[in-house]
Structures are given as structure tokens and as C-alpha cells.
């Protein structure tokens, strides 16, 4: 497994959100994180990326312990977060945002070629390359956030609510992109509110509640799981 998380605890200072999360994500596979708002998905993503400190447990990536590494060092190892709310650099141009995506030493060589690949993947970004990122629509900003994440040549992409508030056409683009990442052999950890779609796209899934994993399995199995059906589909 590329990513192995064991009994991870964390949160914001004294406010503990994660109470021992154990999960794994493999190369060339989409792993979905399901759970209601406030279940701890975003906290988990941010702790994995190194934006929040772990209060206990371990994060292993590519066989090495990364639990205590700062965020920049994790990007350098190959972990890219596409954060909830996109967090683009609003006053910088689209092109500069992409350039910054490749600021980790591992990604600096050949960043121009990779930027061209991103423009090919998301033609809208090429049209708007010179505009400030803050002037883009929500969907375009999401494309930019994903492209910026891919600029770092990651092995693991943490996608936190990438379709939140997007129009259906944009949602399709996002899921097509996820499919493409899997085909390229990347590990994708996907926190997604659209449970039906997430389970369709996922090879494996974890259900998180109150900072704990309460169910795990293959996507198709979980879709049939009574607890998941009750919680998310409103059917028995």
C-alpha cells in the first residue's frame, strides 16, 4: 500500500476530531472517504497533508514514516492536497498558480511541459492563463486547484470535496479527471459528498463517523451495506 494510516488522532489543538483512523490507499486506485459534514474528513485530509499536527498514531507513505514531517516535505515525498474550498492564489494569474504548484524541488524540472499538459487537460485554464485566479468561476477554480496539485508530480492526490457547489457538467469533468489519475497509476484519496458517484468511481471506500472509521470495503460492497444505505441513500 502506498499510504498506510494507523490509529491516527488529531484535530485543532485541544479540540480532538480524529479518534484513531486506520486506512490505506493503493497506487492506481481511487479510495473514497464517506461521511457526514463534521465527521472529520477534512481534518483527516489536512492532517495527512501536514497542515495539522497528528496527536497520535502514524502515517506511512511509500514505506517511510511521514507523521511528523512539515507540509513542504510531504509535497516533496509525493503527496498533493487539493484542498476543500480550492485555496487558489486569487491575485496571482492562472499561470503563476500552476508555476507555484511545481515549487517543490521534485517538481521544478520540466514544469513548463507539465503546465502544457494541464492546459491540454483543462483547455479553459489555457484561455484564462493570464487572468487572476480570483476572477475564475468556482468550477474553473476547482480545475485550477486540481491542476496545481498535479503540477507537483504527486504519487498520492488528496481530493477534498472537489465537486462541492459545482454545476453537473463540471462534476463530470472532475470525475473524468479522477478516472484519468487512476489510469496514470496515481493513488487518489477522495472525500466526496456525492456518495453514489463516489462509490461508483471508487475501488475501495471508508465510512467515517465522529472521527472513526465505522465501515470499510470495496466500493460496490459498501453501496449494498445496510448502514451506508440508511445513512446516505435514505433507504433500508
Amino acid at each position: 500500500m502506498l499510504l498506510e494510516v494507523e490509529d491516527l488522532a488529531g484535530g485543532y489543538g485541544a479540540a480532538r476530531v480524529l479518534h484513531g483512523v486506520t486506512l490505506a490507499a493503493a497506487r492506481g486506485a481511487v479510495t473514497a472517504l464517506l461521511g457526514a459534514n463534521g465527521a472529520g474528513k477534512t481534518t483527516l485530509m489536512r492532517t495527512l497533508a501536514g497542515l495539522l499536527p497528528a496527536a497520535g498514531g502514524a502515517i506511512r507513505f511509500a514505506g517511510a514514516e511521514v507523521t511528523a514531517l512539515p507540509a513542504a516535505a510531504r509535497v516533496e515525498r509525493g503527496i498533493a492536497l487539493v484542498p476543500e474550498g480550492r485555496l487558489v492564489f486569487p491575485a496571482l494569474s492562472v499561470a503563476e498558480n500552476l508555476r507555484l504548484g511545481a515549487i517543490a524541488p521534485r517538481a521544478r524540472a520540466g514544469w513548463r511541459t507539465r503546465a502544457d499538459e494541464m492546459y491540454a487537460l483543462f483547455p479553459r485554464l489555457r484561455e484564462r492563463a493570464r487572468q487572476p485566479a480570483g476572477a475564475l468561476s468556482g468550477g474553473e477554480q476547482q480545475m485550477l486547484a486540481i491542476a496545481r496539485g498535479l503540477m507537483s508530480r504527486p504519487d498520492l492526490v488528496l481530493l477534498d470535496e472537489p465537486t462541492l457547489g459545482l454545476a453537473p457538467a463540471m462534476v463530470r469533468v472532475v470525475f473524468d479527471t479522477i478516472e484519468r489519475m487512476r489510469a496514470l497509476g496515481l493513488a487518489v484519496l477522495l472525500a466526496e459528498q456525492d456518495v453514489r458517484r463516489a462509490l461508483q468511481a471508487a475501488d475501495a471506500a471508508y465510512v467515517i463517523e465522529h472521527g472513526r472509521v465505522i465501515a470499510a470495503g470495496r466500493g460496490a460492497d459498501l453501496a449494498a451495506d445496510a448502514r451506508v444505505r440508511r445513512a446516505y441513500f435514505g433507504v433500508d
Partner: protein
Amino acid sequence: MLETLAAGQLLFAALALGALYALVALGLNLVYGTMRLLNVAHGDLVMLGGYATYWAFAAAGIPPLAAVLLTASGGAALGAGAYRGLFRRLLAAPRATARIEANSLLAFFGLSVIVQNLAALAFTATPRGYEYLSGVVRIGEVAVTGGRLAAVALALALCAAVLAFLRRHVLGLAMRALVEQREAAAVVGVDIDRAQRASFVLGFGTAAVAGTLLSMTEQVSPFMGFPITIAAFVVVIMGGLGRIEGTLAAAFLLGAIETYGVALTSPTYRSILVYGLFVTVLLVRPQGLLGRRAIVR
């Protein structure tokens, strides 16, 4: 009157003042932008650079244009030392960070008073100056001393270099990312510690160099820093906090307003002009003349 205003001499004076303000304010805004620390002692670095240049010339015979290298590296070293010794440890703890941001004004103000009085103790309050490149050069109708011309040219070149560094260099880009969106900078893998140190090094270094350049045209004194700090504040507020291009534009605007304002009235009104502008901008456009509110979707 109109003839005076149209004169090239005045235009050059405005440009010279603007270039100096730009150099000083850029550093102030970088340190603020990357770390949210308002360095009220920034002008005192200019003073220290001025004295270093004076003594290097008076005691060791080092010409001011060579002393630039000395003050640049001295200022940079001071910046690295201040960052390492004082702020890195304090900024590492999130709870201390909030306190530091709130108290940075007071802390720096205290530091400023100490530095000023130590300088007065060490160098006496008597203003000091030297003769260097004092021959007059004529460019068209503008007559200017060689020292002043060199100082302005160097200030402009340095501003351009800093701007190019921030636009092109990886570290400059990292610093702008930090200014723009601290959390996103961490997300893309900016080495935050390194970028913060770089902003201290660059900010302190440019301020010290500004002191060298200023000493080439004016006398230095222990308390010369405070008005420079205030002018730099006005520039930063006008240009927008954390906005690099805005700072440059605002510096030349303030240089022009001050120069032409004083020419139209009298030097007595300088402070009223500068502070008046400061208060007006704060009241009317707190986000800066060229600043804009962040667009959040």
C-alpha cells in the same frame, strides 16, 4: 509658479524621493506580507545603514558606492539574525503567533526607541555628512550632483531587481505565495521557514542600502529613521498591504505629492501633507488606492 512646477529639476527630485520610498517600503511590505509583522523600526535600519556608510568613508576611506555591498550584506545578516533569534521560535507556536501579530507594533516600537537612543549615545546627536561625488552633472536642464544621480540610479535599479526577483525567482515566487495565501503556500509545498527568512533578509538588506544611498545626499542623524518609517507606512497603506506592485506605484505617487506639495507651499507643510494623505487614504480607501478586496467564491 507654473514655471517652477514644470521644471525638470522638480521632476527629478520627485523621482529621487519616490525611488527611495519604494526601496524602503518594499522591504517593509514584504516583512508585513509574509509574516504580518509591522516593523516600526524599519526606518532605523536606514539610519544604521547611513551611519555604517559614513564611518566606512570617514574612518576607512571606503567609497559609499562600494560600501553598498557592505551595508547590503550587513543588513541581510541582521535580518537573518533577527529572524532566527527572535521570530522563528515565536512564530512556530500558533498561539504565540496571534499574540505576536497583535504586539509586533509595540515590540518594534520599543526596539526602535532603543536603537535610536543607542545610536545617539554612540554617535552623538550631531548630524554627520561627507563630500562624495559632489561635482555637478547636467542632464538637459537638470543640474544634479554626481552622488545624487548615482543614488537615484542605484535605488531604481535595486527596485527593478527586487521586482524581477519576486516575479521570476522560485524563492521570490514562494514569498509572493506566502503574502497572498499563507495556507495555500503550505499546500503547494512552499518552505515557509525559508521564505520568511528570505523576506527578513531582503527587507533588512534593502533598508540598509537605502541608508547608504540617503547618506550620499543628506546628513545622517540618530533620529532620521522615524520620518522614513512613517513615509514607508503611508506608501504601504496607499499601495495596499502585501501588494508589491501597488507599493512601487504608491512610492512614486507619494514622492511626487510631497515634492510638488512642498514646492507649492513650504517645507513646513511636509508633515501635514504626508500625515494628511495617510489619514485620508485610511478613511476613504483602507484597502489601498490600488489594492482590491479579495474575490472569494
